[in-house]
């Protein structure tokens, strides 16, 4: 007997590769965004700093990849499964909501890691990407960020009744987060009011934490970000498992 969630992850991963548009949005779109901005601003160190635009923005684009996978891909695919009756078929088997959610999550996580690796390769090859932090601390910051964005994505993924509503909800969550959290545009360019609003999104905290650690900070320097991200992990898991809808 194989483990159910390994089997779910495997088939979801295969399905993902057979879906060109999702593939484009997670792997290619963040890369193009990064290359576009990098071509405008280059990667020469900012005055008085050891890092330039690309060094600063690579962690932010990692946040973009996470949001695209864990909110867009996860929600739209689960909502479509729900509407079509795929979840109903899973429910007839001895499958638990967590095996389905975690299986889906591992598949999109693998894609996320691939997207991140593409960003790193492009940064290193074209812009001599600098990493100023501690590798293990960054891995921790990355995983916590991924966990909290995924847990947030679990909520609409568990509840959206139809494919259409799934797409709408995912867009409503995704686009404001995309522009306000620093994922697409540098956060420091936002007006103060927008900066304040952006703090409701876990993605803002995730990006700030990853940027901080990437540029040489320690994760314990960011207790607020850590607390918010951890809170989202638990809230998302609780809501999604408690209120999961099969049909």
């Amino acid at each position, binding site marked *: *007997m*194989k483990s159910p969630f*390994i089997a779910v992850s495997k*088939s979801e991963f295969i*399905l993902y590769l057979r879906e060109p548009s999702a593939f484009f949005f997670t792997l290619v779109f963040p890369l193009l965004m990064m290359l576009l901005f990098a071509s405008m601003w280059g990667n020469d160190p900012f005055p008085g700093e050891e890092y330039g635009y690309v060094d600063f923005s690579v962690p932010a684009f990692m946040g973009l990849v996470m949001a695209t996978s864990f909110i867009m891909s996860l929600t739209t695919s689960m909502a479509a499964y729900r509407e079509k*009756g795929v979840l109903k078929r899973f429910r*007839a088997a*001895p499958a638990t909501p967590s095996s389905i959610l975690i299986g889906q999550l591992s598949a999109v996580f693998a894609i996320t890691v691939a997207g991140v690796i593409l960003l790193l390769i492009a940064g290193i090859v074209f812009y001599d990407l600098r990493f100023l932090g501690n590798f293990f601390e960054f891995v921790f910051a990355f995983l916590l960020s991924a966990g909290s964005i995924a847990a947030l994505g679990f909520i609409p993924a568990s509840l959206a009744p139809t494919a259409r509503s799934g797409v709408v909800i995912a867009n409503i969550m995704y686009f404001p987060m995309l522009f306000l959290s620093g994922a697409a545009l540098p956060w420091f360019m936002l007006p103060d009011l927008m900066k304040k609003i952006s703090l409701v999104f876990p993605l803002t905290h995730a990006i700030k934490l990853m940027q901080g650690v990437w540029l040489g900070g320690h994760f314990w320097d960011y207790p607020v970000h850590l607390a918010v991200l951890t809170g989202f992990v638990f809230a998302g898991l609780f809501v999604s498992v408690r209120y999961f809808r099969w049909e």
Partner: protein
Amino acid sequence: MTDNVVTVRNLVKHYKDVKAVDGISFSVKRGEIFGIVGPNGAGKTTTIDCIAGMHRAYSGSIDVLGLDPVSDSIALKRRIGLQQQESEIPDRLRLREAMELFSSFYKKALDWKMLLEQLNLWEKKDSFYSALSGGQKKRLFVAMALIGDPEIVFLDEFTSGLDPQARISIWKLVGNLRDQGRTVVLSTHYMDEAERLCDRVAIVDHGKLAALDSPSDLIAAHGGHTRVYFDASEGFDGKSLSLLEGVESFVNRGDACTLEVNARSAIVEIVKTLDVMGQGLDSFRIEAPTLEDVFLNITGRQVRD
């Protein structure tokens, strides 16, 4: 000890304000083929879904293999298989991938290659789900219902939309399931199918159980009379036929005559009489009552009304 694998007592299930099932009780014995028949919307699917752990809320009690479909849902699903009327798998999953995926949910899964072969799907194993015909999809879902080597197999409207040939091949398979020692609970709105396959049939209408017995006993009790048809030659007078013992009625519409008889012995007398009268028997035809007649007599309407 009774050997009931399913016991349903006073099951009631509402969808918003519609009562889909309105107080149904019955038991299914180990090893039998149990049919739930009735028109669309009678509550067949809801009943099966409640038994198979697909609903969290209903009133009444259900016991399946000693388990409760709500609180022991996962443990129950390891021991049963459900073929649903309306469920799907992702379009771009290949059959072999789907079978491997669903095998992973069971501790002792059957060999999916053998199942695909048995269901005539082996040559489709590399096809996408979306490329299957309706009948092939149906067979795939039967295969998926069997993959966990279930003690009870639930087949919901398992032949609707299939062509006659595909229906016959699935009928054979259902017989094999019983021979393997499995209990089969099926629903259908085809009365001929239920009559042919089932050891016992529950007739369901408007969410209530209208009758439950073996097809032959149901027919004996509610089927009505056997009918005899023949075309008479011109100027035929059937008075002598209607006086025969066991003949309930005689109707002569043009040349087409119909007799209803309450005993098979009357048929012999009818044939003899016709022979004496010099009537040819070319068009002579006997029609025994079927489950279709049982449904009509019990509910007052055709099953496909």
